[in-house]
């Protein structure tokens, strides 16, 4: 791998031991994946935040680091709402460890926003920008909808990029790896959670491929694209997709290795296979709710009372900017939790079955939280929470 004189100096330890190791991480990954150089990144989003996932081992490592991030850097969701963790049912001991983790990141100069949707609250990525983001759905959104370039970074490699300001140039940073490998012809008009169900199906088929979608009918909203990408990154490991005439176009000419055709029948089968009936809790906001989604949920809950636990997960900045919607949702008995989500919080583990509108949560709830999962439209989720189904 080629290093500039300055990079070589860091690699040799001229700027201290933390930076030397960080550079060593970037170079080792570059070697593994065949990168020729490093490239500056505009922003970093760091995974390895929920204490449930990183445990004492991860906390120790982050706490031991010395240094400051040199590019805007923000965090993935934590294992709890950093303010209302007691209400979530989080144990004191866990809360202490989670707060220690957050403080360790703060000491490094990381902005303390814990969200899987950084693009909903900050301008951190534009077309063609190189990034080092971690969270799989954010990576997918950045690559596909924004047209930026990022691999799916692990916690340490994201932190390395944040402290050095660079990442190794390989994978989705290069045009040659951004060409579609599958053509997906969808013969159905899709709406809302249909995009999560579609992503759930396609991710399983294409695995780490790059699907190119032809979708008839109405243009998908930003939230629908968010749900599609999130589900494909969970059921497969799709980090980049295209939607004809909607997302930025692929580079140059391409030829699909395979064509997949899916219609209403296949999508409805997902709902039938994972029904929401029997759920003792409902969770929305995987990925984190946008302002528009909060507004929609508030509209559906206006003047109603929930019969079941209903969590709405979002970024703290979004909740703070929309106090009226948050108040309407909470008056129904539902809870708006920030900084966390049903997938990464241990608070989810006490439920037997959770209903969600998210294809991503449908994949992760059973494996990561040991909770059964069902999927339905946003309206159906609210109906279940209100005891109407």
């Amino acid at each position, binding site marked *: 791998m080629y290093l500039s004189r300055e990079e070589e100096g860091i690699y040799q330890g001229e700027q201290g031991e933390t930076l030397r*190791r960080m550079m*060593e*991480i970037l170079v*080792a*990954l570059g*070697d*593994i994946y065949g990168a020729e150089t490093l490239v500056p990144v505009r922003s970093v989003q760091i995974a*390895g935040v929920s204490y449930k*996932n*990183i*445990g*004492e*081992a*991860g906390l*120790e*490592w982050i706490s031991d680091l010395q240094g400051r991030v040199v590019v805007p850097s923000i965090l993935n969701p934590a294992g709890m709402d950093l303010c209302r963790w007691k209400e979530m049912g989080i144990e004191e001991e866990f809360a202490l460890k989670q707060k220690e983790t957050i403080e360790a990141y703060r000491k490094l100069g990381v902005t303390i926003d814990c969200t899987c949707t950084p693009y909903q609250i900050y301008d951190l990525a534009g077309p063609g920008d190189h990034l080092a983001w971690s969270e799989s759905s954010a990576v997918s959104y950045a690559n596909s909808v924004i047209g930026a370039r990022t691999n799916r970074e*692990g*916690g*340490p*490699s994201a932190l390395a990029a944040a402290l050095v300001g660079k990442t190794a140039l390989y994978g989705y940073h290069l045009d040659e790896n951004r060409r579609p490998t599958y053509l997906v012809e969808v013969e159905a008009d899709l709406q809302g959670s249909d995009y999560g169900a579609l992503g759930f199906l396609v991710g399983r088929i294409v695995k780490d491929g790059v699907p190119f979608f032809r979708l008839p009918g109405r243009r998908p909203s930003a939230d629908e694209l968010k749900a599609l990408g999130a589900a494909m990154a969970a059921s497969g490991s799709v980090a980049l997709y295209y939607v004809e005439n909607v997302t930025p176009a692929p580079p140059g000419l391409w030829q699909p290795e395979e064509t997949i055709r899916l219609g209403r029948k296949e999508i409805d089968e997902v709902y039938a296979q994972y029904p929401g009936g029997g759920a003792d809790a409902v969770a929305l906001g995987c990925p984190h709710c946008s302002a528009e989604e909060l507004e929609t949920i508030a509209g559906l809950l206006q003047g109603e009372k929930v019969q079941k636990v209903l969590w709405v997960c979002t970024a703290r900045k979004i909740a703070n900017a929309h106090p009226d919607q948050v108040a309407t949702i909470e008056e129904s008995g539902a809870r708006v939790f920030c900084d966390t989500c049903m997938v990464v919080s241990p608070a989810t583990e006490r439920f037997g079955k959770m209903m969600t509108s998210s294809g991503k949560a449908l994949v992760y709830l059973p494996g990561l939280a040991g909770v059964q999962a069902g999927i339905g439209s946003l309206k159906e989720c609210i109906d279940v929470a209100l005891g109407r189904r």
Partner: protein
Amino acid sequence: MEIKCHKVACGCARGPALVTGDAISFLGNVDAKTGVVVDPAHELFGQCIAGKVLIFPGGKGSTVGSYVIYQLKKRGLAPAAMINIRSEPIVAVGAIISGIPLVDRVTEETMQIKSGTLVEVDADQGRVRIFRDD
């Protein structure tokens, strides 16, 4: 005997070899508090990796494995050095953040080294030295 290799994490260390043909998931396969392989399905089940030159094809499993390697190192229970056929990010990152010499791209004969043989990994020189008993 010397074998050429590719440096992943810098440093030079020696110790008795501990060799397995199984990939290792540090999260789950190895107890961070004892350094013992605790997965009954693993070839190294019951063995302690502390102070050894751990020779294995590569890592697998959760990325949290990188942090487990770090925890082992802090407790003095980490391998002295590691050799992979092909390093992947979990073990590579774990070795680097922990300061454990790690090399890869070695020949298949490296996997034939007998456990217990004294081995030196000099990542900086890109060299593995095997000391015969004779």
